[in-house]
């Protein structure tokens, strides 16, 4: 795990290594200050003249300035190293995700990928910063302070030799006890916050059923439970401070007694007032470093889970990758399914697609109809190799899709996904996703074919209109048409529309299909739709049910022989008998208010 993460340090290696070295310099300077001060005090006590004091004072000032310089430099390199590391790690993770297949994305889920890229990286960054600076500093201070105290005070410093293990053991014992409580309570705490979120989201339901009091009781129960656990953990942690007090104060009292004795009995030769003063300083520093060590321990264990989650993504293998010798040319738009079966995951019990055998000629228009869960989308996803077939072969232009260069294949197979997404940016920028080098004229042409020009021209800024994140400022039907235009700019050999005109009125829908037929006659078109009217003119219509092709044929043939097709048709077209006359005019409703 460390190795994978360390790979992201890269160009910040120098500052990363420099930091502990600078910290070492800082600690050495800092630790020598009380030592030199002791001598200064001794000479003051012995009644030295100002001229004798000044050189020592000068040396001390220089040491303090050096320590300041080292410390500040370490602070700067540390911030470079840790922020740089976080930047690289974020970069590596983001780039890795870009190589993911749809199956990888499904396995992690978008929201969990977001958490890994944000919160988890922040945690790891904090831990990294701690590790290269404070975690180096504390043990160094501990060792140096003790050695200096010993060099100076001899037997008096032995007091610390007793205190260090006691305190160290005590601190780590508390942490050891507290950690499992925290681990448990943090889960409960997350659950509590999730239940609040559930409550906020479902507020209309809560209020409709007058369940406010029920919710209050439910929340109070959970909140009190969390509180009880947190209190238990914090009460254990509360032993830290008194324990520190016992040690510091105990040492202080002991040293006053022992120190006085040695000073007086040795007449200040072995140990003097200056040393007595400095040994307190060292004691204080030893305690602080122990405190910090126990804190680092907590921080690092908290970052541990985050690092695991990051490494999990970094080490994941994309389930779809380019072949070694890829085919970079798609001959034509023919599609063949040879006994194809497909499961979304190895462990799934049910086959999403079951033994599909289907052959589509280049330039054909194919409609696909079926209820929810009949695997219409799964079928077309295999064509652009968004997923790989579990069994059998999918061929495009006569070549197995697994042999193509992925970019080549996906450039020739344009998909308008069921879950349409537009990105923040202008309309033109969004459409140019299809072809970055498209001229304004080409962009307009694509929009016209998708019947998007009519409303885009109505916007005051036209194609420069800004689309909000997720396309939230255009209506569902407008979004669908923009997405179709985006795909058309690809000039693909195969065009797949996955339920892409559901929010577009039937007349416009027909116009779009007419445009496609006229301007892209050689392109193979696969059209998934809920509405029979969207597919009834197709060359052939596939009726899907439960992952199988229930029937395939023209509209008239299917009406005669397919029960499902006929039922769907009649459930949608009861009015044909009642309403023969054509619609008088063509108004379109656009969403205005946000309240529905």
């Amino acid at each position: 795990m460390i190795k994978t993460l360390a790979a992201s340090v890269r160009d910040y290696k120098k500052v990363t290594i420099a930091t502990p070295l600078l910290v070492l310099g800082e600690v050495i300077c800092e630790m020598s200050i009380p030592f030199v001060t002791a001598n200064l005090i001794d000479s003051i006590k012995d009644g030295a003249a100002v001229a004798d004091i000044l050189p020592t004072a000068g040396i001390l000032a220089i040491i303090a300035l050096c320590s300041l310089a080292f410390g500040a430099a370490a602070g700067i390199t540390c911030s470079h190293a840790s922020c740089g590391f976080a930047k690289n790690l974020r970069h590596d993770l983001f780039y890795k995700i870009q190589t993911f297949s749809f199956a990888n994305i499904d396995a992690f889920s978008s929201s969990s990928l977001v958490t890994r890229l944000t919160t988890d990286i922040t945690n790891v960054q904090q831990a990294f910063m701690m590790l290269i600076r404070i975690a180096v500093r504390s043990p160094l201070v501990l060792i140096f302070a003790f050695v200096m105290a010993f060099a100076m005070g001899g037997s008096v410093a032995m007091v610390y030799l007793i205190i260090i293990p006691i305190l160290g053991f005590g601190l780590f014992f508390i942490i050891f006890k507290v950690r499992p409580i925290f681990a448990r309570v943090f889960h409960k705490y997350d659950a509590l916050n999730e239940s609040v979120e559930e409550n906020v989201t479902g507020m209309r339901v809560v209020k409709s059923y007058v369940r406010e009091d029920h919710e209050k009781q439910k929340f109070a129960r959970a909140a009190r439970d969390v509180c009880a656990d947190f209190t238990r953990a914090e009460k254990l942690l509360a032993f830290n401070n008194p324990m520190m007090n016992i040690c510091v104060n105990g040492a202080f009292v002991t040293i006053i007694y022992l120190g006085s004795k040695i000073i007086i009995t040795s007449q200040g030769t072995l140990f003097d007032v200056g040393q007595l003063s400095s040994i307190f300083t060292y004691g204080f520093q030893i305690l602080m470093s122990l405190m910090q060590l126990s804190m680092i321990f907590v921080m690092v264990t908290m970052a541990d889970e985050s690092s695991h989650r990051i490494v999990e993504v970094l080490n994941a293998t994309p389930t779809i990758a380019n072949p070694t010798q890829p085919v970079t040319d798609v001959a034509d738009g023919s599609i063949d399914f040879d006994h194809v079966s497909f499961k979304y995951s190895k462990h799934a019990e049910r086959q999403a697609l079951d033994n599909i055998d289907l052959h589509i000629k280049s330039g054909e228009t194919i409609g696909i109809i079926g209820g929810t869960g009949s695997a219409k989308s799964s079928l077309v996803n295999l064509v652009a190799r968004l997923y790989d077939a579990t069994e059998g072969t999918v061929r495009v232009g006569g070549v197995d899709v697994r042999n193509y260069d992925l970019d080549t294949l996906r450039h020739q197979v344009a998909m308008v996904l069921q879950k349409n997404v537009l990105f923040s940016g202008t309309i033109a920028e969004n459409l140019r996703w299809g072809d970055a080098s498209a001229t304004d004229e080409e962009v307009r042409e694509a929009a016209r074919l998708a019947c998007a020009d009519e409303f885009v021209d109505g916007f005051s800024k036209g194609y420069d209109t800004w689309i909000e994140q997720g396309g939230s400022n255009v209506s569902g039907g407008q979004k669908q048409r923009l997405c179709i235009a985006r795909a058309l700019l690809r000039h693909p050999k195969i065009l797949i529309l996955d339920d892409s005109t559901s929010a577009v009125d039937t007349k416009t829908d027909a116009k779009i299909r007419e445009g496609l037929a006229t301007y892209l006659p050689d392109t193979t078109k696969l059209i998934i739709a809920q509405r029979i009217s969207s597919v009834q003119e197709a060359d052939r219509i596939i009726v899907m049910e439960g992952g199988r092709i229930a029937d395939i044929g023209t509209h008239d043939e299917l009406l005669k022989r397919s029960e499902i097709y006929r039922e769907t048709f009649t459930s949608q077209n009861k009015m044909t008998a009642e309403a023969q006359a054509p619609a008088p005019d063509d108004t379109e409703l656009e969403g205005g208010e946000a309240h529905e």
Partner: protein
Amino acid sequence: MSKATTAERAKNRKPGTFSRLIKTLFSFYPVLLPLVTLGVIVCAVINSIGATFLQRALEVISTSWQSGDWEAARPQILSLATTLGCIYAVGVLSSLFWNRAMAIVTQGSLEKLREKMFNRMQDLPIRYFDTHQRGDIMSHYTNDIDTLRQMISQSLPNLLMTIIVICTVFFIMLYYSVWMCLVIIAGVTFMTFMTKLLGSNSARFFIAQQTELGVVEGHIEEVMNGQKVVKAFCHESAAEADFDERNEKLFEVSQKANMYANILMPILMNLGNLLYVLVALAGGIFLALGVPNLSISGTALSIAVVVPFLNMTKQFCGQIGQISMQINAVVMGLAGADRIFELIDEQPEEDEGYVTLVNAERNRATGQLVETDKHTGLWAWKHPHHDGTLTYEELRGDVRMDHVDFGYTPDHEVLHDVSVFAKPGQKVAFVGATGAGKTTITNLINRFYDIADGKIRYDGININKIRKADLRRSLGVVLQDVNLFTGSVMDNIRYGNLSATDAECIAAAKLAGAHDFITRLPEGYNTMLSGNGAQLSQGQRQLISIARAAVADPPAMILDEATSSIDTRTEAIVQRGMDALMNGRTTFVIAHRLSTVRNSDVIICLEHGRIIERGNHEELIAKRGYYYQLYTGAFELE
């Protein structure tokens, strides 16, 4: 993004938050918290007076070290050490007490605040939830509470401790030597100035960092949510370039923010070291030059005075380091407290209704309604009048809207002069485009919002007179966006009626057509749902929510796009259950799929907040207007 808002809040905080927070904490723990305060003060004083004992020990040493007579000095030193030891023991005990008590105070206060917020939130009007983003509401419970935790448990006791220590040490210093004290004050003033300078720079970049972090996180969220589109369009490298640009900007500000934070400690610490040297030097010079001392105690300046000063210098500087570490936590904590108080102060939903819903039975002799405790299946509105009389009105489900105007904001009216009459048991459908005002009408019937003009009557009673809880209990609601709660399928159905038996819940599920798929779930009705029923399809979730409404058995129902995610063939199957459910109940149906509304008694077409057509299916088809065009597919509703 919520982090950024907390950071912004830190900049323009309201005055008085600090004192209100302290008052609130004391009101939660009126006995324990004063004791904690006392404990902290005792601890702080005890920890500061060690220096005076050191001074006395040193005096003993300086009188007897040249003779080397330990036996003479021993009793004095021993008594000093034991006295100090006893005082320290008291200090440790009080430290033990206040630290443990503080654990209770911190967690208990957070829990009480959480509960206060949540309880207030339950009583807020729907308007609050419509006008605040979910993430923003949530951050009260996560970010804001977390910043408060840090502040209550660490910053507040530390600040108090620091103030007491500084005061005590300051007094001790004056006690021994005013000159030495002045040296330290000069040094500390300079350190405080540095802290302020670096601290404010750090805070500036810290806020900038939060903003950039918001930008990067927003971009990450957008790309991750559209990752499949990115793949399908081979747009990976463009997305990467966009990302790198933002990532680089974040790096620049966060590096600066961290830098200022990182160098603050070494600078303060070493300024402390310099001060330490300066104090030693000053002491030496004063001693060597024989400067006359000025002090409260009147003691002369001696080595026994200078050495404790060195230790006090360390203590003083250490405390300033403490404050500098807590300052960010305090600023953020107060910003969090500010937001928490704001939520607690929100105006709850008002309810001036006095007509209540009660179980009733019919007196066999007179035929009049009488109130009863039993569940009779017969409900009545209990209506107290001005003259002190009580009348009972049978609950039938007759809903009338008379010339209703309404706007979500006063300057923008979304419903104009809407009148709707639903007789008991009728099915009334609303048809219209997004924004036409369909859902708004249902929001008014159950009083999620109050109308601006006109009247709404339920069984002849103005709904403003009916207690909101009772009004809503008489209306079942099934919404397009289904919200399920963490718990079993059975719990979720029972949400409609908490006293329903398992058998009643199952019967309701059967009625809704949900029984079949529920029994096929791994553990049937006991299958645990979480994450808003993430493991179910949208259609299945809608069926559960229909069952939930069915078990509530309300006389009137609102179905807002309740079957929109069920495909047309399945809907035809569910339709029987729906029809059974609607049978005998006044039902308001909103659907953009016309097959759902065809068999309604009344279909009302809305456009831009006005009723443009009304009638049943046959009448509207014959009219050849708006509904006819929709029906023949001339345009589609969005």
